């Protein structure tokens, strides 16, 4: 499991490799908060390498989206596989987040 943050244009792209769950969500949260602190405002989380996400992983995404909005920025999600899509639909979080199919459309959408 690892989180890599990379700048593409003026967007911070976060790759979640492995699971996003109770045991590691703080690490993701801290990394993104550090970027907000540094002045970054546009974030795209790419889930193409992600396994599963639990409720506390979802909770961190909700929390980060608020923090980013408060700072005047935007968070988008990309590349959810069918299982992850189902998870966002079940929790209706697909209505809270801006979700794009691919990293490319996500980057282009800002």
């Amino acid at each position, binding site marked *: 499991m690892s989180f890599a943050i990379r700048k593409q244009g003026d967007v911070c792209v976060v790759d979640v490799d492995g699971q996003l769950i109770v045991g590691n969500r703080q690490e993701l949260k801290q990394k993104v908060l550090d970027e907000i602190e540094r002045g970054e405002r546009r974030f795209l989380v790419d889930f193409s390498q992600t396994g599963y996400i639990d*409720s506390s992983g979802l*909770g961190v995404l909700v929390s980060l989206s608020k923090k980013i909005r408060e700072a005047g920025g935007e968070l988008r999600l990309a590349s959810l596989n069918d299982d992850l899509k189902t998870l966002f639909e079940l*929790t209706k979080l697909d209505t809270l987040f801006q979700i794009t199919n691919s990293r490319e459309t996500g980057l282009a959408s800002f």
Partner: protein
Amino acid sequence: MHSLSPANGPDGLPRAGFPIELSFPSDVSLIEHVVGMVREECAQRQLSARVCNLTVPVALTEALSNAIVYGNGEDRLKQVRLSARLDDQALVLEVTDEGPGFDLDACEIDPTTEENLDREDGRGLFLMRSLMDRVERFTNGGNVVRLTLNRQ
């Protein structure tokens, strides 16, 4: 001392080679490995990709993290117990903690309503109930949460 794998389980049904029984200290960093074991066994027993990649890992992670965090207060001296069994009817996951238990039926918060949608917590039991066919709680040498997934 009895045999490690009786031909039939306590319910009289064949055990079909699945049973996993596990007791481990209350540390959330162990969850992923415990779940990995159960997922692998689900895959070996030819359960669907959906069950192996979404239903079981998410529902089990919720039950284990509640047991560790709420049941045992993340006290590493307290143990969490997992029992996973598969028979012709169902996959049954039982998670036991050393806590006093809680009122499962009172925890009926719907995290999908407009006012709850941007809450950070409160989706654990909802996900267990959405993904599994049955979620029950009882006491048996500890607080037990039992998740059942029917096989039809």
